[in-house]
């Protein structure tokens, strides 16, 4: 029983950076911008966070630094894509590559460095409950923040006026423009918010999860986060589900290997990615379902006709 509790705890920890990055990308995509540069932003956020934690000794400074770094990169991407109308897919890919190289370059002096010891966090009373305690209540605060963020985002997008405007811009920017909304600035705000969240996700990886810096630390999690948004049919609560599914299958395959289960380890390594593809395929069976949920202007540049 204890092993299952530990497995649940490991799943939540593993899924948290995916939740954060996935929610950031969700905000981007709801506004109609597809940011393929998630991996690059996460990497730059990771090195910024690690450097900040190394010099300041504080995690929260590190997360702020990660968010700031993410926003800077996202701002560049936003200007290119929103004002200059460059192809979103190409720009996003370029951003990914840039982020990978830049983070490696800046990070050279931080490889092999150690961060100061951190205290572990437990929710005061709830952590002592027999099974649920170790399973759910011994996570880093950011894990709980991620869950709350998903709920807050769901409320924001579907119950608030600003959220409605954001979704409107994602569905039909021309209509929103004709109603007088500053489409490009709101899109930029969404891109910045997405960049900040991806940066925090990266910082979480380098400061809490690993915790160390090496080149390529993010190891493809940005791409997984990108896959999570259609997986979740662009709904925040389902991003949570997808992230924990991926994290869970990842931890499960290690657990199965350790327990001596007779399945080749290479197959088990594939499992998380295969699970993601299978669910995506199942969701895509009904094209109408996708059309209803996908923001209609996703990936298309907007030119105000004025």
């Amino acid at each position, binding site marked *: 029983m204890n*092993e299952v509790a530990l497995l649940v705890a*490991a799943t939540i920890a593993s899924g948290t950076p995916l939740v954060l990055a996935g929610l950031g990308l969700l905000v981007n995509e709801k506004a109609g911008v597809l940011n393929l540069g998630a991996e690059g932003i996460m990497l730059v956020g990771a090195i910024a966070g690690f450097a900040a934690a190394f010099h300041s000794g504080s995690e929260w400074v590190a997360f702020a630094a990660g968010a700031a770094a993410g926003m800077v990169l996202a701002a560049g991407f936003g200007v290119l894509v929103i004002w200059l109308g460059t192809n979103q897919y190409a720009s996003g890919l370029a951003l990914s590559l840039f982020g990978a190289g830049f983070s490696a370059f800046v990070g*050279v002096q931080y490889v092999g460095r150690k961060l100061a010891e951190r205290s572990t966090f437990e929710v005061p009373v709830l952590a002592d409950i027999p099974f649920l305690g170790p399973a759910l209540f011994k996570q880093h605060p950011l894990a709980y923040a991620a869950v709350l963020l998903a709920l807050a985002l769901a409320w924001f997008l579907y119950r608030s006026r600003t959220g409605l405007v954001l979704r409107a811009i994602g569905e039909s920017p021309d209509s929103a423009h004709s109603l007088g909304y500053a489409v490009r600035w709101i899109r930029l705000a969404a891109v910045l918010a997405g960049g900040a969240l991806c940066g925090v996700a990266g910082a979480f990886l380098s400061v809490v999860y690993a915790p160390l810096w*090496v080149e390529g*630390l993010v190891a493809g999690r940005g791409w997984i986060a990108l896959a999570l948004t259609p997986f979740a049919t662009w709904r925040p609560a389902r991003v949570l589900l997808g992230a924990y599914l991926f994290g869970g299958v990842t931890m499960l395959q290690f657990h199965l290997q*350790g327990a001596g289960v007779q399945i080749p380890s290479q197959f088990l390594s594939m499992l998380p990615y295969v699970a993601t593809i299978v669910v995506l395929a199942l969701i895509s069976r009904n094209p109408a379902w996708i059309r209803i949920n996908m923001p209609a202007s996703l990936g298309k540049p907007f030119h105000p006709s004025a």
Partner: protein
Amino acid sequence: MFSPTKRSWLKAAALAAVTVLAACGKEEPPPAPKAPAPEAKAPAPPPAPFKAAWVYVGPVGDAGWTFAHDQGRKAVEAEFGAKVATTFVEKVPEGADAERVIRDLAVQGNKIIFATSFGFMEPMLKVAAEFPDVKFEHATGYKTAPNMRIYDSKFYEDTYLAGIIAGTVTKTGTLGFVGSFPIPEVLRNINAFTLGAQSVNPKIRTRVVWVNTWFDPPKESEAAQSLLNGGADVLLQNTDSTAVLQTAEKNGKLAFGWDSDMSAFAPNAHLGSAIVDWSNYYKKAVRDAMEGTWKTERTVWGVKEGQNDLVKIAASVPEDAKKKVAGIQEAMKAGTFEVFTGPVVDNTGKERLAKDAKADQDWKDKVDFYVRGVEGKLPTAK
């Protein structure tokens, strides 16, 4: 209102780029035509340094495998001074890119090239055929050519020593191993670790998790976490970063450093570091090439030649374990101790080495099983 179009941005950017490039160009001193006279007056120029190059599969900063190789390269620089000029290329993927990098290095005038990962074997073999004057050295492989030879290290001696300590300090009787790929080298290490532990406590069990990569810290972390969740309390790894050790530290358990001294990363969890020191071999190889005594052979060094060792053994390790380790280290240095001495039985019950038989190089190269005590079935077992 100023409304920049994409075209105007591009023009401005192009203009800026051209200006910067032109400015950079002007800073270089113009190549003045040197008169032949100064050359005749100057003394004979010193002989051009002997060029040696290294090809790494990972970043030098991994604090593990590649770091250890780079330390060896630096030792060569320190030893030969101005007579040798070294270069390295890091993070070279195994495959077609490697061939290009090795060929580049040969064309640039390097007279000896070291490739430090198994996957560089085929690319290096191809390039070796094209450059008969250059000496090629491949680590941990098995193919050779008239100008290409192989070198390896007895990592399993380190893991055996680590096993002795692990077997003594474990409270749960279960050890954990984070493995990279199920190849003979890694299997030897797992088996030696288990055999060493069993020499102290015959009931030791080892659990193995494969991450199918040499270097991926978050994955190594996750694998380590799952081993600890499953009841292991002492970990060893065959992957290249400090993540496993740090995960053990986070959980209040114990682990070993791998390839380099990792004691700084985990003050409480660190039991010892199983290191490899390539400097002696690299100095010998470069000297061989410079003096013309280089020949194709296979060199596998271990504790005896100072290439492997278990260092920085923690103060918390009990004295009797330390004494036992020291005793075996002495025997290894004297060349009298062979880790793989029979009887060795695999975990399906089949006998792999008869009683008192000592394994030869061929046996060691073909290890494809787990010894008794290691749980699970091999991913590629026949």
